[in-house]
């Protein structure tokens, strides 16, 4: 298949869509479903009537502003309405009003302005289709330019060309560490030909992060396309998606997407009429945060206890069943199709010197607009929280924002003016992580927050290495004592020493980063710890 053939197909699908005069999009991502969007969709369908096929109610992926769900967007060609009319907190009872007013005055009580910074300040690459296309529709994806990247790679580029574009793009792994994706791919590509694997890490375990979930639920084909391009570039013919069992909707949509892509000849044997074969299988996680670590994840795919092993050898050399393996996370793969489609230079023009492109963040906690945003790397933290996020509710004041989950740290107000990228966050003692941002207000106790994360690491420690297994337990009990105002100066000193040992000697990333929340809260909020210490009784 050539690009022209795909373009023809896309044009055909777009023409089908063009015949629909009135389109009502209902957010069907997990968060809006939890707020009752299924019932809203049924009610809208009733209100829509059959409409002779000109009125169409469509379930779409995440629209971003989860706290205002269920969200509904209305478009109508007759009156030039292009889906910029967004309604929030919609109930089934609102359906007649919404449908009855499409070309008249909007229903003001439900109106959610789309010119507000939350929407206007975003730059969407990963989420470009999210909230627009029906995630279960293969046609929708192709009509929106889907699979053009893969077909272009297969028909017009050599694997080396693909590697070059990805390297040029400057894309870095979106799973946390920020390892250059092009370099990772090249390492696997350089390994001798033979059985190689591509793994998509969809075991998004950071509490407070739901970016990958949204991508999988909103635009699953994009992830498959990214994986197929990667497989072509490195010479793999088999892929696995390791996805959390806690995300049933994402799993369901992935399964549908896999089936449809296969039927269309975009996965399986002789993809797009070329000699390239690539199969993808889904593997379910079973509730173990440590399986986000790549060697533990591979152990889990192999049906073993999800315990990490020492590296080297790195997965690129000896991964799944001892074969060279490429592991990237969902968001990384979601960036690939646009990079191949638009070129690495285009991607590299977005973002900062050392962190290219955009980043999806999940805003949660004590903030007005909780939900999902995608902004260029280098956006100021203050802009994200105060402008896009709408600031802190209930007239409270900002205290800290936590990034990087249990491996990250808290950033206080005085550092909010930094541009967000991998390196700036590192200098502040935290990390990008997968992109969760939890905002805390003045009522949050930082010792308590540190204890919470340590409790997390303690229960999620796999138990293999001594520093992590017993060190997190000890640090948690020390933090517990301090939080209950029973700790002493000696306890605090011991806590700091354990932080150092666990960080330096643990086997894998979980243990090595487990002390980060403690170290960063100690760095910026030491007074809160000291206030809770008992005076030595002499």
């Amino acid at each position, binding site marked *: 298949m050539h690009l022209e053939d795909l373009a023809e197909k896309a044009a055909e699908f777009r023409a089908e869509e063009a015949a629909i005069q009135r389109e009502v999009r209902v957010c069907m991502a*997990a968060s809006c479903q939890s707020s009752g969007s299924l019932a809203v969709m049924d009610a809208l369908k009733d209100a829509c009537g059959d409409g002779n096929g000109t009125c169409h109610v469509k379930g779409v992926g995440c629209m971003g502003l*989860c706290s205002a769900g269920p969200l509904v967007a209305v478009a109508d060609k007759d009156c030039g309405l292009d889906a910029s009319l967004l309604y929030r907190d919609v109930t089934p009872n609102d359906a007649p009003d919404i449908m009855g007013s499409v070309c008249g005055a909007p229903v003001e009580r439900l109106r959610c302005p789309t010119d507000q910074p939350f929407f206007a300040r975003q730059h969407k690459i990963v989420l470009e289709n999210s909230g627009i296309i029906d995630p279960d529709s293969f046609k929708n994806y192709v009509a929106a330019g889907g699979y053009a990247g893969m077909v272009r790679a297969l028909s017009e580029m050599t694997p080396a060309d693909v590697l070059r574009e990805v390297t040029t793009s400057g894309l870095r792994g979106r799973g946390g560490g920020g390892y250059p994706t092009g370099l990772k791919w090249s390492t696997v590509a350089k390994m001798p030909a033979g059985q190689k694997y591509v793994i998509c890490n969809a075991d998004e375990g950071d509490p407070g992060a*739901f970016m990958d979930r949204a991508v999988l639920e909103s635009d699953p084909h994009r992830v498959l396309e990214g994986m197929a391009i990667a497989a072509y570039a490195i010479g793999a013919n088999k892929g696995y998606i390791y996805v959390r069992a806690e995300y049933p909707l994402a799993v369901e949509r992935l399964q549908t997407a896999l089936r449809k892509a296969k039927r269309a000849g975009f996965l399986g044997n002789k993809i797009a009429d070329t000699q390239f074969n690539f199969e993808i299988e889904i593997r379910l996680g*079973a*509730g*173990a945060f440590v399986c986000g670590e790549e060697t533990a994840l591979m152990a889990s795919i192999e049906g073993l206890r999800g315990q990490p092993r020492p590296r080297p050898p790195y997965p690129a050399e000896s991964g799944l069943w001892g074969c060279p393996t490429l592991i990237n996370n969902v968001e990384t793969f979601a960036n690939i199709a646009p990079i191949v489609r638009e070129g690495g230079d285009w991607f590299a023009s977005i973002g900062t010197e050392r962190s290219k492109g955009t980043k999806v963040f999940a805003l949660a906690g004590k903030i007005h607009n*909780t939900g*999902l945003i995608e902004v260029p790397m280098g956006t100021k933290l203050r802009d994200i929280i105060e402008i896009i996020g709408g600031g802190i509710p209930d007239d409270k004041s900002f205290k800290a924002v936590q990034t990087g989950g249990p491996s990250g740290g808290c950033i206080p107000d005085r550092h909010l003016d930094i541009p967000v990228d991998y390196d700036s966050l590192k200098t502040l003692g935290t990390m990008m992580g997968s992109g969760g941002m939890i905002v805390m207000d003045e009522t949050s106790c930082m010792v308590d927050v540190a204890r919470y994360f340590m409790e*997390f690491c303690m229960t999620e420690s796999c138990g293999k290495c001594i520093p992590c297994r017993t060190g997190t337990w000890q640090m948690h009990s020390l933090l517990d004592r301090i939080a209950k105002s029973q700790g002493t100066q000696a306890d605090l000193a011991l806590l700091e020493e354990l932080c150092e040992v666990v960080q330096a000697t643990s086997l894998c990333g979980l243990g090595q980063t487990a002390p980060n929340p403690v170290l960063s809260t100690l760095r910026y909020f030491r007074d809160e710890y000291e206030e809770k210490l008992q005076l030595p009784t002499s």
Partner: protein
Amino acid sequence: MTLQQAKPPLPSADTRWKLINATMRRNGYAGHALIETLHSVQDAFGYLDETSLRFVAASLDLPLSKVFGVATFYHIFMLKPKGRHTCVVCTGTACYIKGAGELLDGIQAHFAIAPGETSEDDRLSVLTARCVGACGLAPAAVLDGDVLGKQTSDTLTAKLEELD
């Protein structure tokens, strides 16, 4: 010399065993299908008991201790039956900051069930989860598969009160 391990007979006439067998067959009875198979046992029976663990171990030709090690490593797998209803309280960061602890305290005060426990009448099991991904709706709980967002201790206990 290859000693072929004979496939064990199904433990009983219960048709659910066939579902589990199908999962293993789909994966060629390979050892790496262990986690997939345990998922299918739990989907079918609600938990993993000794009979099912022995059956899976024998079918996949895996050591018993390895199967038990895997079953107890992953938090999703339950070795005891759950109550008729299951309420999972999310203790992810966003929910924690917004009061997941109060939800759990409320349940404890009202029904005397601690996380991981089942009420004596087998009506309700209470579990916690590491982020169900509904951070926008924090604090959240999942009741029998349905996500309940923006809960308070009162709304949640009221919901649980209504259960049969």
